[in-house]
C-alpha cells in the first residue's frame, strides 16, 4: 500500500489541478510569511495557514536534493519526523512548496515558492523567553519558558503562580549554557537567583553603596563574574495615537559582581549621577565590556532627550577592574539612541538596537537592529531583517551563525520571536517567526508577548520544588562591596 501512496497523492494533486482548479500567478498569502526564508535543518516544521476563508489546504514540498512531503488539512501541518528528515536531506539546498487552497468549493493553486535550508547547523536545544501581557504596570501571569526548537514542545521554567506577587525579571544564561543562569524577582520578596551546576543561591544585590538590585545582567565567559546594571525603571504614557508607553530609568548604574565571594565592584566612573549606564555585555574573550551610556535628564519631562551612546571599557578578569570608558558609537550626536549591545560568541560582530531616543526600544516603532563589524568598526542597519515596526531584544546562537530577535511587526503590539542566519561576511537572511503547530491560532489568540528571548544549548534544569519556600523565607545571601 505504501508504495502506492505517492501515486495516489500525485493523482489527487493532478485532480485538484484540473477541472475547477484556478491558477493564480501570485504567491500564496500564507501566515506566517515563510516565503524565501532560510531555516536550519532539523528545526520544527514551518506549518502555515491560508487566510480563514480557505477551508482546505494541500501542500507538496519537494527538496532540491531529493525527498518529498505532502500534507492536506485545514492548515499546512507537517509531520515532525518527515519534515526533519526532508530538511536534513536538503541541507544546503532548497525546498519548493506547491500550495493549493479551497475556497467556496473551488481550488486555487498559487505560484510555487522556495525556502532555503542552510548548511550551517543550529544545534542548540531551543529557546528561553519570558511571556507576559504587553501592557502597563500590572501582570496577572508572567513566566519564563523553554521551547524545543526541533518540535513544538514548550514548558515553563518558572511561572509567577509559584511566586505570587513577585514580578519576574529576565533569564540570563552564560553564552547559552543553561548550567549557569540567573533571573531576578522583583517585589516584597525580591531576589536574584543564581543557579550554577544545579546549585542555587538567592542573592540580595542591593547594598548601601548601590541604588537597587541588579536588573540587566550579562555573564563573563569564565563564569566567575557578571556585569549588571541597576535600573529603577518607570513608565509614562503618551496622549497621541501612534504610541502609548515610554519606559525610562530614574537612574542607572553599572556594577560587576564576583560570584566567588558575592561582592560587587562599584566603580564611581560607572555609577555617576549625571550619566546613565546600562545594558552591559562582555566580549567572548572576556577582555572588554560593552555598555550604553547617556547623559541624564529630568524625567519624564525630558525623556525624549535621553540618548545612549555605545561605549566600552577593558576588563581585567583577575581583579574585576574596569578600564577607561571609550565611546565606540556616539549615536546621541546624530539624534539616535543605542541599546542592548550583544557581541557574537565568535567575536566577529556586535548587534545592537538603534532608536530615536530611550533605552527601551520595544515601544519605539522606529527601533531597528544594527550590526557592527568588530574588526573594522563599520556599522549598518540590518535591512534584511528590519521592519517598519519595533525590533528589539536579540541574542546569538551558540555557534553565532544564527540569531533571534523580538519584533512587533505582526500587529504592532504583540511581540514575537524571529530567527535568521548570518554568514561569515555579515549578510543576513530573511527572518522567520518561531514555528508553531497552528501558527495563526497560536499567535492570533495569545495575549502574551515574548520577551528577552535567548538560545539555550541544552534544556534548562530548574526544579520548582522548594522555590516557593526559598522565595518567601527571605533568606538571602547579601552582596557586599569590594
Amino acid at each position, binding site marked *: 500500500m505504501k508504495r502506492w501512496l505517492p501515486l495516489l497523492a500525485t493523482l489527487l494533486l493532478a485532480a485538484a489541478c484540473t477541472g475547477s482548479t484556478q491558477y493564480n500567478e501570485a504567491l500564496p498569502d500564507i501566515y506566517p510569511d515563510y516565503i524565501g526564508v532560510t531555516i536550519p535543518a532539523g528545526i520544527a516544521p514551518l506549518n502555515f495557514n491560508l487566510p480563514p476563508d480557505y477551508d482546505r489546504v494541500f501542500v507538496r514540498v519537494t527538496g532540491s536534493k531529493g525527498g518529498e512531503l505532502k500534507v492536506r488539512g485545514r492548515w499546512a501541518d507537517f509531520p515532525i519526523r518527515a519534515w526533519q528528515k526532508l530538511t536534513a536531506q536538503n541541507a544546503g539546498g532548497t525546498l519548493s512548496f506547491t500550495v493549493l487552497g479551497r475556497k467556496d468549493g473551488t481550488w486555487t493553486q498559487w505560484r510555487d515558492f522556495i525556502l532555503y535550508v542552510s548548511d550551517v547547523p543550529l544545534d542548540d536545544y531551543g529557546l528561553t523567553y519570558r511571556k507576559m501581557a504587553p501592557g502597563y504596570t500590572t501582570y496577572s501571569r508572567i513566566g519564563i519558558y523553554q521551547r524545543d526548537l526541533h518540535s513544538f514542545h514548550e514548558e515553563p521554567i518558572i511561572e509567577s*503562580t509559584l511566586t505570587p506577587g513577585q514580578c519576574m525579571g529576565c533569564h540570563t544564561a552564560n553564552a547559552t549554557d543553561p548550567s549557569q543562569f540567573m533571573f531576578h524577582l522583583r517585589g516584597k520578596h525580591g531576589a536574584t537567583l543564581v543557579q550554577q551546576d544545579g546549585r542555587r543561591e538567592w542573592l540580595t544585590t542591593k547594598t548601601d553603596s548601590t541604588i537597587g538590585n541588579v536588573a540587566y545582567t550579562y555573564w563573563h565567559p569564565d563564569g566567575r563574574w557578571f556585569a549588571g546594571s541597576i535600573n529603577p525603571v518607570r513608565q509614562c504614557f*503618551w496622549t497621541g495615537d501612534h504610541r502609548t508607553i515610554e519606559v525610562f530609568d530614574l537612574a542607572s548604574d553599572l556594577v560587576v559582581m564576583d560570584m566567588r565571594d558575592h561582592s560587587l565592584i562599584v566603580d564611581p566612573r560607572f555609577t555617576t549621577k549625571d550619566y546613565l549606564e546600562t545594558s552591559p555585555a562582555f566580549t567572548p574573550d572576556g577582555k572588554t565590556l560593552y555598555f550604553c551610556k547617556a547623559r541624564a535628564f529630568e524625567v519624564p519631562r525630558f525623556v525624549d532627550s535621553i540618548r545612549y551612546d555605545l561605549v566600552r571599557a577593558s576588563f581585567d578578569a583577575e581583579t574585576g577592574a574596569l578600564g577607561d570608558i571609550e565611546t565606540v558609537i556616539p549615536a546621541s550626536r546624530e539624534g539616535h539612541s543605542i541599546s542592548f549591545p550583544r557581541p557574537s560568541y565568535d567575536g566577529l560582530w556586535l548587534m545592537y538596537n538603534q532608536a530615536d531616543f530611550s533605552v527601551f526600544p520595544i515601544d519605539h516603532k522606529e527601533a531597528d537592529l544594527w550590526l557592527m563589524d568588530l574588526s573594522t568598526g563599520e556599522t549598518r542597519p540590518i535591512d534584511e531583517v528590519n521592519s517598519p515596526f519595533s525590533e528589539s531584544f536579540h541574542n546569538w546562537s551558540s555557534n553565532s551563525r544564527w540569531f533571534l530577535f523580538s519584533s512587533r511587526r505582526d500587529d504592532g503590539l504583540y511581540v514575537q520571536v524571529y530567527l535568521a542566519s548570518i554568514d561569515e561576511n555579515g549578510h543576513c537572511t530573511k527572518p522567520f517567526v518561531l514555528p508553531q503547530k497552528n501558527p495563526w491560532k497560536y499567535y492570533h489568540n495569545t495575549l502574551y508577548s515574548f520577551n528577552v528571548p535567548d538560545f539555550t544549548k541544552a534544556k534548562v534544569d530548574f526544579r520548582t520544588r522548594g522555590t516557593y519556600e526559598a522565595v518567601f523565607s527571605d533568606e538571602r545571601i547579601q552582596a557586599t562591596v569590594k
Partner: protein
Amino acid sequence: MHYDTPSGSRPKRLPVLTLLTLLLGAATFAFWMWLYPQDLSYQEQNQLFLFTWDYLLERLALPGGLADWISEFLVQFFYWRWAGALIMALLAMLLQRAVWRMGRTQYMVSFIPSLLLLVYMGDVEVLLSYPVALLIAVWLCPLFLHARWHRLWLIPLGWWLIGPMILLPVLLSMVAMSSNNAKPLVYGDKAQQRVVSRSASIFSASGTRNQSSGASHGYTELLILIWTAIVFFVGTRLMANQYPLRDALFGLNYYRLVETLPALQWIIPIVTLLSILACNIPLQFRHPALAGALLTLLLVLGTFLGVRATYDRDTHETLAYDWLIRHERYADVLKRADKYQPRNPVSACSVNFCLFTQSQLESRLTDFYQCGTRGLVLPSIRDNLSDITSAELLWMMGMPNITLQYAFDLQESIQNGRKSGRFMQRIAACNIVNGWYGRAIRYLDLLDHSLFYRKWAREQKEMIQDEARVAADPVYAWIRSVRFQDDFITNYNTLDLMMAILYNQNKNNFMAAQYFEAWQRLKQMEDKQ
C-alpha cells in the same frame, strides 16, 4: 424529626419538604436578585468564558479543572442578573437535596451546607467553582460508598476533575466503611435501622459486608487514606508544579486571590460531611413540629447573622455603584449614596461621576463624601475594581490612552489570571479609536467566542473594515473629536491641566470643563484641610 416512613412508600410529608426546598430556592433567588445583584456582576466581569476547545483544555490542565469550567460556563449567565440569581438558587437547592438524599432523615440539617455557602459567598472573591465542586462531591458520595476498590481510580479522577473537594466522598466512604466494621452507627431501634437501610443510608450502602473482617477493612481504609495522600502529592507535582504546594492542596480554583485560604473554605466541606452523617441519625423528638420550628429558626437566625458578619457593607455598596454605572443607572447611584455612602475614594469617584451625568456636579459636589482630587479621578491602582469608573469617565472625556492603560491594568489585576469580557471590550474600543485595528481584531476575535459579547464583537469587526463607518460611529467620532491633538506625556498630578487643554481644544467638551472646575474646588478643600 424523622420524615421517612417505615414502609418505604412515598413520604407523607414530602410536599412540605419540597416546599421547604423551594423556599430555600426562593430566598436564595431573592437574595441575589434584589439584595446583592452587584456580586453577580462582579463575578461575571472577572472572567471571560470562551466556547473553544482550547479554553476547556486549559481548564482541564489543572486539578479541579472541570468544576472550574462548569463554574465559568454558569457565571457567564450572570450577565443577566435574573439568570445569575436563578443559578445560585438552583445550586443551593441541588446541594440541599443532595445532602438530604444521603440520609433522608434530618431534613432541616440538610440545609446547613447551602446556607453556610450563602454566608461564605459574602466574600466576593469566592469563585463559583467552590460550590460547584462541593455539589459534585456530594453527588459522588453514593458512588464512593459502593465503589470499594474502585476508589483507587475514582480518587485521582475526582481530584483531577473537582480538586481537593474529592476528599469529602473519600472521607465519607471511609467513615461509613469503618463504622460498619466496628459497630453500627445507625441509632434507634431495629425498625428504624431497617428504615435507614431501605432509604439508601450511607451505612446500609456499605454495611453488607462480612462483619468478621473488621480488621482487614480497617487496613483497607488506611490504605485508601494513604493512596489519597499519594494522589494529592504526586498529582500536584505532575499537574500543578508551578503552584505553591499549599495552594494546590487546598484548591487552585476555589478562591480568586492567591495566598489566601479563608477558614470557611475548609470548614464548609467538614460541616457538609457532618451534615450528611447527621442526616443518617433518625433522632426521635417528643415534639417534632416544635423541634423542626426551632431548628428552622436557628438556621434562619444563624444565616442572617452570618450574612451580616461576612457581607462587608462598604465593599458591597462600592460594587453596587459599579454595577449601576455599568447599566447607566446613574440616578440610582445617587439615591443609594443619599442613604449611605462608603467613605472611600472609589465610591467618591463613582458618585461624582453620577453627579456629572445628572448635571449636578457643581451644585451637589459637597453633599457627598469627598476625599480630594482622588475622589474625582483615581490614579492607577493595581486592583480589579478601583479604576473602572475613572477609566469610563476619562474615555468619555477624551483620554482614550489612559482608559486603555486603566482597562488593561484592571484586567491584568484579576488575580487568578482570568480575562474580562467587560474590560476587553473597552480595550478593543480604545484600540479602534486609535485606529489600531490590527490589535483590536485580536480582542474582538476572542470576544467572538463568548456568548454575551459576541454580537458587539461582530459589529465592531464589521465596522473596522470600513474606516468611514468608524468615523461615523457616534462614540468613536466623539472621542476622536475631543481627544488630545498633540502627543505628550501624561501625568496624573497635572490631570486638571490636561482637562483644561481638552476643553480649550473643543469647547463642546463641557465634561472636561466641569471636571476641571470640580478638581480646583476639591484641591482647594484639600489645601484648607
